[in-house]
């Protein structure tokens, strides 16, 4: 029987029952403080969300322990005593609104509800079950740390804290999603990150008005400067060390509860070409690999289109032996170069998509059969020429060298457009498409930073910084377009 007003906006047992009506995992237990008759209080929690042992040992036991709570105390005094330590919990919140109490409960708190004054004390007793910290699956680490982000926000923030043991590492938390109530943490190093970036990021997060924030794509779309571009504007990593490294570059991190990823803003194109392992190896080797990735980016984007343009319009650009070889390869092939490249690109995408969607053993079989049919059989049947297969395969493999899956996807999309432009107007079309792309990229900004930075930095050495990994001793200052006031990374050029 409910003594309180059923429609009250203050926390109470009946009001909470109303709020959680139909929630089979909602538990409410009436207990007598100090086992003394006369005043019932209600302990509420969501089964599975909280740790049962903690509820029993840390809340129910001290509340019901005889003599622990005063005899015939007023409700207000009882709340005060429990809040001040009668219950063993490292967090306690006093809630006087129903909504706040309900939010705490869904966030893994156990609420002790006092019907009389219409107040509740909430204690965090969230269950510890979840995936344990494990090795990164995508960003493999050879010489770096092996701890990757998991789906639990607090575990992830603690991983970052362990890398940067500084009180300057700040953490602001907001909740996003009307229904999901997803906790989102914004992490940055004060002084190193730009205040304006932090403020803007928090503003954009708080402005998100959606039912739920459950996927990385949702977050990126909501807080990106230009959601219409296929190019990624937020860096993301599953490695805590890479996340910490980027915080020290002046970027602002975002960690979303439920996503095993850390996002970083601002995201500029050259940053998407780097991998955390670049900083683990020797700078010369890392520079070579970084340069190779840029070459692969160019090949992946331009090679099919250049092949189409040259083989359809500009045959005179080919060395004679290559021209003769290509002419021979194309004999009796019914499709034009553009059609066969488009067909092969489409087949490539289909194979890739099929391989991803099917379960692993079936996916591998499908890929092998598909590759045989599309590659060998199509060539033998003279439906496509071997050189078109080589070009598309080379472009595809080059695309796989992209560290960022989102960037690789954007390149895959643009590859089709470039081929169409080259098929329509030859190298003129290809160059026009390239000029448009550069114009588009140059017009993008991510949280105030030019998307092509440092390629477009005014000092003229930006391209060098983007294309090569400089030795640490030369890398003394943080990027002026990303970092805040504290730009000095190390003293004396890093010399001993």
């Amino acid at each position: 029987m409910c003594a309180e007003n059923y429609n009250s906006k203050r926390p109470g047992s009946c009001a909470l029952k109303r709020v959680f009506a139909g929630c089979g995992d909602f538990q409410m237990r009436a207990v007598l403080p100090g086992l003394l008759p006369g005043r019932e209080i209600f302990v509420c929690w969501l089964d599975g969300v909280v740790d049962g042992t903690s509820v029993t040992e840390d809340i129910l036991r001290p509340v019901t322990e005889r003599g622990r709570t005063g005899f015939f105390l007023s409700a207000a005094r009882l709340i005060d005593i429990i809040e001040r330590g009668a219950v063993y919990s490292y967090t306690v919140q006093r809630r006087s609104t129903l909504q706040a109490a309900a939010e705490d409960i869904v966030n893994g708190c156990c609420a002790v509800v006092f019907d009389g004054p219409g107040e509740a004390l909430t204690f965090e007793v969230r269950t510890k079950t979840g995936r344990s910290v494990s090795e990164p699956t995508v960003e493999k680490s050879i010489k770096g740390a092996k701890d990757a982000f998991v789906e639990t926000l607090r575990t992830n923030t603690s991983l970052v804290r362990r890398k940067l043991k500084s009180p300057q590492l700040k953490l602001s938390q907001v909740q996003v999603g009307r229904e999901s109530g997803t906790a989102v943490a914004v992490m940055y190093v004060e002084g190193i990150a730009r205040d304006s970036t932090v403020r803007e990021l928090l503003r954009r997060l708080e402005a998100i008005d959606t039912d739920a924030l459950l996927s990385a794509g949702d977050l990126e779309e909501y807080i990106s400067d230009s959601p219409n571009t296929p190019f990624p504007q937020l860096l993301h990593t599953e490695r805590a060390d890479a996340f910490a490294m980027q915080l020290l570059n002046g970027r602002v991190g975002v960690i979303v509860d439920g996503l095993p990823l850390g996002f970083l803003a601002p995201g500029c194109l050259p940053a998407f070409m780097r991998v955390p392992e670049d900083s683990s190896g020797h700078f010369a080797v890392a520079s070579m690999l970084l340069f190779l990735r840029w070459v692969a980016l160019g090949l992946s984007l331009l090679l099919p289109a250049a092949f189409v343009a040259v083989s359809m319009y500009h045959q005179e650009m080919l060395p004679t032996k290559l021209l003769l070889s290509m002419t021979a390869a194309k004999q009796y092939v019914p499709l034009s170069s553009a059609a066969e490249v488009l067909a092969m690109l489409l087949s490539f995408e289909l194979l890739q998509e099929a391989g991803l969607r099917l379960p692993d053993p079936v996916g591998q079989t499908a890929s092998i059969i598909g590759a045989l049919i599309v590659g060998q059989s199509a060539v033998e049947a003279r439906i496509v020429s071997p050189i078109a297969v080589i070009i598309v395969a080379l472009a595809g493999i080059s695309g796989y060298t992209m560290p960022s899956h989102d960037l690789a996807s954007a390149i895959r999309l643009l590859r089709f457009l470039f081929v169409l432009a080259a098929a329509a107007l030859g190298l003129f079309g290809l160059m026009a498409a390239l000029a448009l792309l550069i114009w588009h990229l140059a017009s993008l900004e991510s949280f105030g930073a030019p998307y092509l930075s440092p390629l477009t930095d005014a000092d003229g050495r930006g391209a060098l910084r983007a294309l090569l990994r400089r030795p640490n001793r030369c890398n003394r200052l943080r990027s002026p377009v990303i970092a805040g006031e504290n730009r000095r990374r190390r003293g004396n050029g890093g010399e001993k």
Partner: protein
Amino acid sequence: MRRAAAFLLALALSGLSGCSRALLGNYRNIEELQVIQTLGLDGREGGVFVSFSTGRDASGREVVRMGAEGESISGAMQALQGYSVSGELFFSNTGYILLGEEAARDAGSCLDYIERASEIRLDTPLFVVRGAEAGPLVTAGGGEDGGITEIMSSLERFIERRAAGYLPTCADIARSLARSGAALVCAIAPARAPDGDYLTAVSRGYAVLRDGELCGYVEGDAALAAAAFLGGAGEKYVEVDGMTLKLISCGARMEPVWDGGELAGLEMALEVQASVIEARSERDLNDEQERSALEEALAGTAAGWMREVLDVSQGTGADFLGLGAELERRFPARWRDISPQWDELFPGLEIELSAGASVLRSYGFDSPPSRAGEG
């Protein structure tokens, strides 16, 4: 977004302009191209005979060889296009251009066509077929199984490495004609292959062009001296005093002799370095005198080459070595005074020659077998 839309609209509208016709008109299916690799030009009575040979590709297509006559080169080419058995004739990858001797007598007009033709590359080597027409060589060279292109390809490598060494392209020739009024063109001659009954080509020094007309030849080893002055001689084998020497390097330089402000003459020096690769006479090259004698003999031979070249040059009045241009480059102020009389001055100019030679390596011929064990 509005700017992007405007750009796309402009792009779409450009399709209505005349440029689009030019662009779209360039579309060619690569598999339909007949890639011409050797082009022959012959002068005929009142016209020109153009012949071509395609290259052999991996698809097993037959080599296409054809020739047609026309009033002009373009006319003959158009006639050829009409005869073409399959596909479109594609001249952009022409690797060799052969001028028959008759056409070489009016090489200037052929070069003029080549320079203006957008589909022929200026870096294509040009050859003069000495004493014959290019047509038969182009259409019948190499016999049934081969082709003139393979022959020219091996001849090109031979000239660059084991013969004179200097292989002028159309661009080099046009530049030399524009600068000095004369140029050297590689000369070849048709010949029967020793191992088969088919027509092939052999190197025959250089043809000399003066004011766009054929006016003589530089023959034999003398071509080496010309090449040394123009860009570097090849590693040719030369016979000197019963020994076979391989030229390692051959360089030439020129110094003017001034008499006040007047050009009194030229001093030309040729420097040759060689290695012994074969010896038919016993000679102890460890002996300083014998080595010096060999070097002197080589220097004398080299000086003879140079003299021969200069005789041809001064005899025809064709400054194909670019001596005037060299003077202009080094002494521009004095050249202004000389240049009006250069054509008259050059044939009679006193040119003093000197040559030096050194034998760098003897590969064991220092001690001939007959003297092994001595000393």
